[in-house]
């Protein structure tokens, strides 16, 4: 039995066959044993694509480690796959370790002999270890009785055997997960699980064992969007207005169940424009409100974002980035909405953009966004991404802030985003910022330019004044930014810079490169607009500064973040990794790229 510290595996099944359910159960089992887990679900863009087609690829990639982790790692070392078509499709993603063990269900081999042969050859030629298995006859009979369901429980049994988990715990979690099933069906599922477990030993393959941690602290299992939803409640928002769009919808789903219990209201709008309009109406009336969307919805909201700037009505927009342009890749990850967030809406519309690095950040970002939005009375855009929104993590139980008015935001929350408190008073274009109901405060807000008294004014002096004050608000935020988080060497040959969900990839690759004796530093930004003022100085301590981004770039086009950093610092920042494949970046990829870059440019 091999003891394992850090391991990545995946379970691949046809969509609708319950791979994610089985993955969840296994992950909860690991978590109960004190192991850290990170899961990335693989979800097709369609609801139920035909089974036994490449479009039907669905499943869960799971990384387990004895150390805290917040990325999916590099390659899968172990794969359990339902049939040859899914394996063939998944091989195209280049996500398997060179020594990976691949367990494939050969149950369909008779109907697709040639296809099985071809895929087996593909896998063996790549040097992977293929282990055929099948579902035993008893279990096939049960699956038939369950109308074709339950295969996932058999597979769960196999996985539980190979990962040496305590079957009694798995059983408890299965019972909890399927508590709504009729007892007879539930027992059949449990039988399938045990059948899979005992069958697995006949495969004569190595088992793996994860060391248990003795850590007794309370842990929670959360995905990014759930953490964001809970953060919205903890930070005191009282209205959520939304319109369904992948991958942001689950925030609305969570809040539909949760928000009313905490004194808030969930409103499903007729479109994204309406959702932000309602947020602005609510904020104008003094009630903190928030909306969430993804790429196409962000495009629709841009005009209202400009109204928020001009009328000085706070608003907070969460944008969970997915592949673009247009409908793009709705269930894949990308970091390409940076410009539409920072520079969207027409005219000069200064705003603030905050990104999240991980699930914990999702919980705390609504607090910071609300703090800045209300303090400066401007729009704040939160940038999450598919990867962060849908991946699960086991983490230490989060400390609540229970924010009421914005001054009750706690220092540890601001610290997380590397910022200080803002000045007590920030100048507004309009002197009177009363909300309806306040006697004597009657005022009219508008997208037109106004003077200090709030009256429409077209004079050049007045317009310039308004621009100045609106930009000054963002400058106050810039002044409040501390030096962003850094990793590894504080000076040297190369600095790897990134934002949002690439944080742990930077951290991990810098650590690996430093262990190899290379002079490498890492720098990660959460607040990406405005940029922290000391970046130029930080960058000057390294010979080269490169960015890593899940965004397209090439020799004639800088990636978005590199472009932003270049214009801010006048440093020749280039996208070392500028790739928008829909997949998150891998630490090994960064390690390899940095090594070859240094070989060419420093040690040449």
């Amino acid at each position: 039995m091999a003891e394992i510290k850090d391991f990545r595996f995946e379970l691949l099944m046809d969509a609708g066959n319950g791979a994610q359910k089985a993955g969840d159960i296994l992950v909860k089992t690991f978590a109960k044993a004190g192991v850290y887990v990170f899961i990335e679900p693989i979800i097709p863009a369609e609801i139920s694509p035909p089974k036994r087609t490449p479009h039907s690829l669905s499943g869960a990639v799971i990384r387990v480690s004895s150390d805290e982790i917040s990325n999916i790692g590099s390659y899968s070392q172990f794969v359990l796959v339902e049939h040859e078509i899914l394996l063939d499709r998944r091989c195209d993603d280049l996500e398997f370790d060179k020594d990976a063990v691949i367990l494939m269900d050969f149950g369909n081999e008779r109907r697709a002999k040639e296809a099985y042969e071809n895929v087996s050859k593909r896998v063996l030629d790549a040097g992977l270890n293929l282990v055929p298995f099948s579902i035993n006859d008893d279990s096939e009979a049960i699956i038939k009785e369950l109308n074709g369901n339950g295969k996932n429980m058999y597979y769960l049994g196999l996985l539980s055997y190979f990962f040496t988990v305590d079957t009694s715990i798995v059983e408890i979690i299965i019972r909890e997960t399927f508590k709504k099933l009729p007892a007879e069906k539930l027992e059949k599922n449990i039988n399938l699980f045990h059948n899979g477990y005992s069958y697995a030993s006949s495969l004569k393959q190595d088992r793996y064992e994860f060391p248990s941690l003795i850590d007794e602290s309370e842990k929670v299992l959360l995905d990014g969007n759930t953490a964001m939803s809970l953060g919205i409640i903890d930070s005191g928002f009282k209205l959520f207005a939304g319109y369904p769009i992948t991958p942001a919808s689950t925030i609305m789903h969570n809040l539909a169940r949760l928000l009313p219990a905490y004194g808030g209201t969930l409103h499903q709008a007729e479109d994204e424009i309406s959702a932000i309009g309602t947020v602005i109406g609510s904020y104008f009336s003094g009630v903190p409100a928030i909306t969430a969307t993804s790429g196409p919805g962000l495009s629709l909201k841009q005009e209202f974002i400009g109204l928020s700037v001009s009328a000085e009505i706070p608003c907070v927009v969460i944008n969970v980035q997915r592949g673009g342009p247009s409908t793009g890749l709705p269930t894949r990850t990308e970091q390409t909405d940076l410009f539409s967030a920072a520079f969207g809406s027409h005219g000069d519309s200064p705003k603030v953009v905050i990104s999240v690095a991980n699930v914990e950040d999702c919980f705390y970002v609504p607090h910071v966004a609300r703090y800045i939005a209300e303090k400066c009375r401007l729009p704040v855009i939160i940038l999450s991404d598919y990867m962060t929104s849908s991946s699960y993590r086991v983490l230490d139980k989060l400390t609540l802030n229970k924010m009421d008015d914005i001054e009750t935001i706690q220092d540890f929350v601001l610290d997380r985003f590397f910022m200080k408190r803002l000045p007590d008073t920030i100048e507004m274009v309009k002197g009177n910022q009363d909300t309806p109901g306040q006697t004597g405060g009657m005022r009219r807000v508008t997208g037109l330019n106004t003077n200090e008294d709030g009256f429409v004014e077209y004079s050049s002096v007045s317009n310039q004044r308004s621009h100045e004050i609106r930009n000054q608000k963002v400058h106050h935020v810039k002044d409040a930014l501390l030096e962003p988080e850094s990793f590894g060497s504080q000076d040297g040959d190369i600095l790897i810079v990134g934002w949002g969900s690439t944080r742990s990839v930077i951290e991990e690759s810098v650590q690996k490169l430093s262990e190899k004796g290379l002079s490498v530093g890492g720098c990660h930004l959460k607040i990406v607009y405005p940029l922290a003022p000391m970046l130029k100085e930080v960058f000057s301590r390294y010979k080269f500064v490169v960015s890593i981004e899940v965004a397209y770039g090439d020799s004639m086009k800088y990636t978005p973040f590199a472009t932003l950093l270049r214009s801010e610092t006048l440093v020749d920042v280039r996208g070392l990794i500028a790739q928008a494949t829909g997949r998150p970046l891998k630490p090994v990829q960064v390690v390899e790229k940095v090594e070859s870059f240094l070989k060419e440019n420093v040690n040449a």
Partner: protein
Amino acid sequence: MPEEKKALSMKDLKSSDPRWCTGCGDYTILVGLRKFMVNNQLERENTVNVSGIGCSGRIPHYMNTYGIHSLHGRSVPVALGIVLARPDLNVFVHSGDGDSLSIGGNHLMHGIKKNFNCVYLLFDNQIYGLTKNQTSPTTRKGLPTQSQPSGSMLEPINPIHFALGLGASFIASTADWLGTHFVDTLDKAFKHNGFSFVHVAQRCPKFNPAAWDFQESSWITFLTDETHGVANDAKGAPDAKVLAHNPLDFDEAMKKANGVPDIFGVFYKEDKAVYNDLLIQQNDSVEQKSRDSLLDSFII
């Protein structure tokens, strides 16, 4: 003894000076709105005028209440945000024919469906005013405009049929120059619980003077009903015809609406669930929790 509150007067409702063309119907709408507020002694601080963009969109600037002059076509979502946040406020929405039925058609449709509590005024000058004379959704077929110089090509939308078809709970039509009829209609609309849709024939002497012949009244028909309707405005329209109509009768309302735009009065009225009330009821039925327990169900 607490100081006695001063009665609200027309003067109290003045804000900055209007900038519409001479003879524009928006002036009389503004005056009618103020008169209505004075009649009902509505509190200025608890009143919000919301608008989209257009000549009509300027109304909030000229009313000394709270106000938002929002985006073209987007006044309904903003108004809804105000109503959800503060259901106690009096919310009036002001929107042009283009604002309502073209760019904002989807929002208006859903505002009507949600039946949230506000008074919605559709300022129908049958033209795009602020952008200088383009065909609007209600422009009469044949009228030459800047965008369709050989004559507007399509039949106009009938706003009353639009609202009836969507199930609006209160539908009336009036005209800017009808004085008491306008104010009485506002009154009826305000007292109705839900989304009160008021179509207002509005003069645009600048670009569409032929739309409404306000000096003549023989073309006008008033719908009357003692209990639910609005009194015939003999003063504003001495030669108008009068037609008895029961606004509780949907089929009859559909038929009478064939006479639009030459017919004014309350077309339809119905008690219907109000979205903001439903949300409050729904939220009230949920057991309230303390945030201390927020993460409990996620602990493993």
